[in-house]
């Protein structure tokens, strides 16, 4: 199983953080444009899912899968959105995203008084902790590792 990349968006759709580990195909557009496209798609899926659902949805949109990869979506009540792309076999990614939120984001961003919560994340400590957290997870096994 492999983890490809991670996006963190805030409530207003601003990309707070992007990180990739094992991404084989680049989009060919800038990261800013890609983030906007990604957010727009998620926004549409979310409203589509709530409108089309025959029953009340309490969790809403959780993930989608193509033949090659799976996109996992986790949104907090405060509107933070964690989006993780993995291969199709990955398990328990929802818990994993929640743990990233609790153990990495809350600890090293929310509790860090020098960080502005509305701005993209530049903290080295966060970057380091996130990287370590992802690499120790059972879903992360790949020989080729690139991180930014």
């Amino acid at each position, binding site marked *: 199983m492999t983890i490809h990349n991670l996006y963190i968006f805030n409530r207003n759709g601003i990309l707070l953080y992007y990180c990739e580990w094992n991404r084989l195909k680049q989009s060919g557009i800038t990261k800013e444009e890609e983030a906007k496209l990604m957010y727009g798609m998620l926004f549409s899926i979310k409203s589509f899912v709530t409108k089309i659902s025959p029953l009340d949805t309490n969790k809403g949109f959780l993930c989608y899968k193509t033949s090659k990869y799976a996109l996992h979506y986790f949104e907090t009540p405060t509107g933070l959105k964690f989006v993780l792309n993995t291969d199709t076999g990955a398990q328990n990614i929802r818990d994993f995203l929640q743990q990233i939120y609790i153990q990495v984001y809350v*600890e*090293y961003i929310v*509790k*860090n*008084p*020098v960080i502005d919560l509305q701005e993209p994340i530049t*903290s*080295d*400590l966060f970057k*380091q902790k996130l990287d370590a957290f992802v690499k120790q997870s059972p879903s992360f096994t790949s020989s080729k590792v690139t991180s930014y």
Partner: protein
Amino acid sequence: MVADDVLLELIHSELVAYAYNKEEEKDKKEVDFSSLEYAGFLSGYRIIERLTKDWPRFKDELETLKFICTDFWSSVYKKQIDNLRTNHQGVYVLQDNAFRFLSRISSGTQYLEHAPRYVAFTCGLLRGALANLGIVSLVIAEIQPMPAVKFHIEVKRS
């Protein structure tokens, strides 16, 4: 996660931000942390009253400092001081390798310019605690690569 732990951290960071903004309004070039340090002094002076209520008197200065490093530190910072050194002439160096108010900020030199703000309160806290135990002192913090801090305590003899 216990909420009251977080509350201290959050209120401390707001205290720092508040003291710092006030200084900026006055348009001072040199920031001084005397208001923060004084707030720490008063808090330390009061908290030590409660913490030592079940203790016998300390036999000397070193005993007092040991109490500060263990019980006092763990009640406020949830850990003990990692290293205590002294020259036996009234200078003590307390080293905390993972200081609570800095441990979330950085592990290295990033945001180093902000670090002094987050130790001023604690300097006052130490000074206030010692003052109520009868030790008049001067406390200075030295920031090592974050999150490690050394507090230099210089005892004033009269």
